[in-house]
Every structure is written in structure tokens, then in C-alpha cells.
């Protein structure tokens, strides 16, 4: 455990000294503040600020996770500094988990900081804190838990940062439209084209990020049940665990 914590600390330290970390953070805060301008064009000021703000937090949390996962893991393999870590009494799974938890810590910090900025802005505009706002932020983090695990997995099997970032981005986009696969299957069956098993396999393999879109509920009477929240938590943790376990499996066989 101490070795995992040492790698977590080293990941955080490395990341916060990287220019991209501050660029992403600054960009996020700029978008959140600029949502004020857009809100003036609409009658529902707080709604616009909320939508733009939460959207920005999600996008930038995703970017921060993907750059950290690809930049740190793939970067370390490419520049061979990894050999000086693995030449010490460190198990390969300790390295992967250390990196993963480190990346999540950075993302959580980013999300909390940007959410804090957004809350301040909303309170100034007379908004009353809604529990579902906190839930929406928590669910953004659940998405990051999944995508970070996938980004590490992809980094281990791809050959360049560009292909790694592109593949992770592709999965992120697909994860938001997986429900459309069901509809596609329905349409294809009606036309006599049977690829149901194939589509079902893709549907269950891809992460379903639509489960986590709580921000649409904020400000409306509809609410989420405790069971749904628990199920989404279990889903993200299970998905991320399987992806990280696969990363450990691949990494254990890697040569440097």
C-alpha cells in the first residue's frame, strides 16, 4: 500500500508541475465565468449558467484525465523512465493502481475547484443550492473513474499518444450514444438484417455514460431514487475495476 501511495504522490506532483494542468484549469474557470454573458441572453439565467458550467466541468475533467493518463503512463513508457521504477521492488499492479489513483486525485481536485467556482457564481445570481447539483458533480467524477481506467488501458496497447487520445475520445463519444444501438438494432431487425448478437456485445462492452447525466434533473421536480444512485456507483466501480484489471494483466506481460 505504501508503494501505491508513493506512486500516487509522484503522479500528482508530476501533473501539477505540468503546464497543461493549469491551462485546463484556467480554461474551465474562464468558461464558467463566461457563462454569465450567455445567461444575459436568456430569461433563465441560472439554468444557462448551470448547463454551461456543468458541461465545462465535465469536458475539462475528461480532458485532464485523458491527458494525465496518456501523458504520464504512455510518456513514461516511451521515455523509458519506467525502467528505473520497475527495477525496484514494485509489483506491476502497484504501479498501475498508483498511477490510476493519482490521476483520479488530480481529476477530483479539478472537478471540486471548478464546482466551487460555479457554486459561487450561482449563489451570486440568487440560486439556492440543490442537492442534485452535488449529485451531478459526483456523477461527473464517476464518468471520470471509468474513462481514466479506459485511457490507461488504451495507453498500454497503443503505440502513440495521438492514437491513444483519439481512441479514448472515440470511446467517450460512443459511451454517450450507446442507447441508440438498441434503436439501431430494432430498425435493422425490422429490415430483416440480423446482427443482434454483435450489437448487443458492443452495447454491453461500451461504457454507458447516459446513466450519469444527472444534470438534466436539476431544477425540475423529477428525482433519482437511492437504488438508482447505488446502481450507478456500482456500475462505474465495476467497469473501472475490470478495465484496470485488464491493464494490470497487459502491463505484467510488457517488456521494457
Amino acid at each position, binding site marked *: 500500500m505504501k508503494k501505491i501511495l508513493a506512486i500516487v504522490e509522484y503522479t500528482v506532483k508530476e501533473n501539477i508541475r505540468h503546464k497543461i494542468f493549469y491551462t485546463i484549469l484556467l480554461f474551465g474557470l474562464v468558461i464558467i465565468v463566461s457563462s454569465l454573458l450567455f445567461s444575459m441572453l436568456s430569461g433563465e439565467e441560472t439554468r444557462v449558467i448551470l448547463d454551461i458550467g456543468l458541461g465545462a466541468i465535465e469536458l475539462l475533467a475528461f480532458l485532464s484525465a485523458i491527458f494525465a493518463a496518456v501523458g504520464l503512463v504512455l510518456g513514461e513508457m516511451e521515455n523509458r*523512465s519506467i525502467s*528505473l521504477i520497475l*527495477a525496484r521492488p514494485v509489483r506491476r499492479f502497484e504501479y498501475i493502481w498508483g498511477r490510476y489513483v493519482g490521476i483520479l486525485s488530480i481529476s477530483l481536485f479539478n472537478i471540486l475547484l471548478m464546482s466551487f467556482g460555479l457554486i459561487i457564481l450561482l449563489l451570486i445570481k440568487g440560486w439556492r443550492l440543490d442537492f442534485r447539483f452535488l449529485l451531478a458533480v459526483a456523477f461527473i467524477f464517476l464518468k471520470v473513474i471509468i474513462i481514466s481506467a479506459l485511457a490507461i488501458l488504451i495507453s498500454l496497447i497503443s503505440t502513440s499518444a495521438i492514437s491513444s487520445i483519439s481512441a479514448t475520445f472515440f470511446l467517450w463519444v460512443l459511451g454517450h450514444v450507446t442507447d441508440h444501438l438498441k434503436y439501431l438494432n430494432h430498425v435493422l431487425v425490422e429490415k430483416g438484417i440480423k446482427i443482434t448478437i454483435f450489437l448487443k456485445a458492443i452495447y454491453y462492452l461500451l461504457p454507458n455514460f447516459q446513466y450519469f447525466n444527472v444534470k438534466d434533473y436539476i431544477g425540475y421536480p423529477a428525482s433519482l431514487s437511492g437504488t438508482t444512485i447505488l446502481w450507478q456507483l456500482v456500475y462505474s466501480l465495476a467497469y473501472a475495476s475490470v478495465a484496470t484489471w485488464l491493464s494490470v494483466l497487459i502491463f505484467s506481460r510488457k517488456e521494457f
Partner: protein
Amino acid sequence: MMIAIRTEGLTKIYRRKYLLGSKKTIALENLNLEIEDGKVYGLLGLNGSGKTTLLKLLVGLLFPTKGCAYIFGKRVPHLSLLSRIGYLPEFPCFLMYLTASEILHFYGKLYGFSVKEREKRVERTLDLVDLKENRNDRLADFSKGMLERIGMAQVLLHDPELLLLDEPTSGLDPLGIKKMRQTILKLKEKGRTILLSSHFVTEVERVCDQVGILHKGKLKRVVELRGLEVSLEGLFVDTVSEEV
């Protein structure tokens, strides 16, 4: 005399896959080697002779295709052995955002040293490689020679019994080479076992007890340097020229 390193039929074949087919490169072939505890053993060979591959196999960064290796009687790879080994790659790469002190503290944590123990070891090691004054400088600001020295510092941090040094003098200026030689000789006096790879015959001749000449992945000759009456350079050239 105890055997520090023993390899039995150690073979490493790299397979590079292409779209149509694959390419096979034999880096090490059926290597049988024994290195006694407390000796300085030099691996001499041309580029691509398999020196780096052997060191990486011993430290567990590569896995053998066939055969096996033992260090202090334990089959490699073995996690507990890594606390007893210090490894210096040919071109040591670090996280350039960290300072000299931070990187050594990080490695110290991976050995499980306490804070107090780490402080002591980091200070001592930085002193040994003349980088005490630069302890709070980022590695990104270091010169090539300073990075080589921090490379040696990370080897010495945990006071290992066995040192695996891959081309330890490559990229060093004459003063750096002299310093490295002195460090190796001091470690030899302390009874440490050292396996170093090089293609500089004169450097190997100055510090080693025994030399193995590797050529195209095969151990061609083992030479005891004490009492050697012919020139090592001549012997090396003759050995590698036989098949060139």
C-alpha cells in the same frame, strides 16, 4: 566462493510483428554464465551483442524466451531480489519535473525506507555524487553529466549487494569517467559484486577481475584479467573479428 549470478541456457529472441509476417532477432543465445560474489565482471561486446538485453533480463524488465537466470540463488524475476540490486541503464531517464532530492526520496519510498532513513540516505548519496548543492534543482535544469551522476545516485541509494551497470561511462567527460572508475573501485573494495557492460576495453581492463566477450548474443570467451599476458584489446578484436 558463492555465486552471485548464474544463467542457464539463457536465450532471448525479439519478435517484431509487421502487417505481413514478423521478424525474429536473436539477442542472446544459450548463455551460460557464472559470476562470483564480490567480483567485478565486465561484459565486452560490440553494439547489438546482447549486453543490455542480459542486464534487463537480470533485473526483470525483459522475460527470457528460454533458459533462466539466478541471482544469489533465487530465480529471476524475484521481487525480493530487487532490493539487493542497483541498476543503471545506459541512458537513465527521469521525471524531469522533480528535483534531485525528490526523485531520490521517491525511489527511497519504493524500498520502504522510513522518512528518517530516507533523509539520511538521500543526503549521503547526493554527497557521494557531488550533487548536494543541487538537491533542490529540477532535473530538467541538469546537464548530461549531472543526470549521469543522479543515475549513479539512484543505484547507490539502497546500498545494493549487486550492481548492474549498463555502459556506465558512456556520455561522461574525462573527469566524469575518472570519478565513475573511482566509485566502482570503492564498491569493489567494499566487496560488492558488479556486472558492467561496455565497449571501452581500457575502462573494463582498469576495473574488472573477469571479462566475458559477448558477440552476436553468444558468450565467446571468458578472460581472467589477473596475470593476463596478452592485450585484452587484441583478444577482444580477435574474438569479434572471427565471425565478422
